[in-house]
């Protein structure tokens, strides 16, 4: 994937804002670019990362570090674990809260999310410092300097520019804000095919053009 610099994103946003640097200061545009990156990352999960943890004897609960937004896969000692929801874990292993690999004589086989950044391993490892590798969607690191880069697909760069420009334009109100919202409406349409979490349904959003007419 190509590296995109903050300066190229900023200039793309200013192209959409008619180069109005007086009304849209650079700090504001950069903030909105970072917001747009977070939004598109939430939809698509294009930023991935991994983190390593060490097991603690008898401990089933592990917290993902700040760099991970949500965990999508867990490997224990180099082997991928099965995924189970909290409800299914409770029904299939009613005593998982106290089960360990020593008491059940079976290896760690299942991971379960408990909240967005916390996972449960079942049965809990009885050994210490066995490698737990978390895969997940990364929490984006905000871009600050113009030379800062982000690794992304080229089409996402255009969407980030559109969304950041939209957010800048909303502060104006009136026709300018409405034009910005049309960019957001187009963004939502594109996200329908790119979204990662299938059950995510965006609420209906309608931009009023004239009285009684909307897009």
């Amino acid at each position, binding site marked *: 994937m190509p590296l995109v610099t903050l300066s190229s994103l900023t200039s793309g946003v200013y192209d959409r804002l008619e180069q109005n640097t007086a009304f849209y200061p650079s700090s*504001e545009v950069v*903030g909105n670019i*970072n*917001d747009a990156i*977070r*939004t598109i*990352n*939430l*939809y698509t*999960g294009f930023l991935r990362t991994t983190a390593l943890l060490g097991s*603690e*004897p*008898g*401990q089933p*609960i592990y917290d993902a570090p*700040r760099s991970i*937004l*949500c965990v*999508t*896969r867990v490997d224990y000692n180099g082997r991928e674990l099965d*995924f189970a*929801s*909290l*409800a299914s874990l*409770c*029904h299939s292993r*009613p*005593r*998982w*809260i*106290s089960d360990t690999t020593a008491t059940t004589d079976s290896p760690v086989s299942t991971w379960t*999310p*408990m*909240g*967005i*950044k*916390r996972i449960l391993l079942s049965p809990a490892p009885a050994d210490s410092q066995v490698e737990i590798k978390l*895969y997940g969607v990364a*929490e*984006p690191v905000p871009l600050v300097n113009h030379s800062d880069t982000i690794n992304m697909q080229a089409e996402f760069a255009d969407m980030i520019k559109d969304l950041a420009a939209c957010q800048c334009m*909303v*502060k104006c*109100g009136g026709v300018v*804000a*409405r034009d910005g*919202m049309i960019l*957001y409406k187009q963004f939502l349409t594109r996200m329908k095919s790119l979204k*990662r*979490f*299938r*059950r*995510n*349904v*965006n*609420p209906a*959003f*309608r*931009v*009023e053009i004239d009285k009684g007419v909307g897009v």
Partner: protein
Amino acid sequence: MYTVSMVYDEVCQLLLERGGLRFTYSSAAFLRDIHYAIVETCQRTAIVKEFFPIDFVAGTADYTLPDNAMDFHEAFAGNRHMQKVSSLYEDKDFGLDDTVLPQEWHRDTSDANVIHVIPPPSIGGSAPVDVQPSGGMYGTIGGPATAQDAFTVEDPLYGTLNSITGSYIESDGPFFGTISDITTGDESMIVIASVRPAATSYALSDVIPILPDTVCSYLKWFILEKIWSMDGEAKDIQRAAYATARKEEILGILAAIMEEDLPVE
């Protein structure tokens, strides 16, 4: 780390009030509403869940959880999962002679934050023993002799807690170190519930607790939805609809993640 002041600055920027809210909305209203925004996010998405240990009392069926517990998801008695049932269909055949520990739970006829267990336990946990060393606690607790002891530490807690089966530990101050093994005693209950931050008021310099930065970046839309919706000079129906869409966007995505619709890598 996202701070309350970062959200405040974003709201000021979108209201064209650089340098602070003065005209259509006040800082005090902002600090009130950011609390509501954080609570609404936690409540509607359940992205943060915690374990709440509770000691049983013989013959008592109702137990109250702390204020920051929201939806109860699962409950365990004596390390065994309890079935969630409806009060309409709860099993009335349980008798105190039949069972020592509760088998089922519900909360549909209970007060807020109260869990009702069925049948009531026939044995109770021991009374908590408070250990409150002055100046914090340093070092290692290596397995108390008696299970069901409770430790309340009001000062910072440093070190490692080893093998504290059946004990309850509460640290009101910062907590440093490792709990290597935390397991309920046979007479205790553990409830898994979604939580909101314990704080109910914020200052501009506060770090927003619990929520990841990506989620915090959406909090401004919760506030702006309210500002642009309420009667007054700032009322703007179209922008209110946009703020609502952005708010529902984050709540929808988080709810989708929490419905455990995780994709295969």
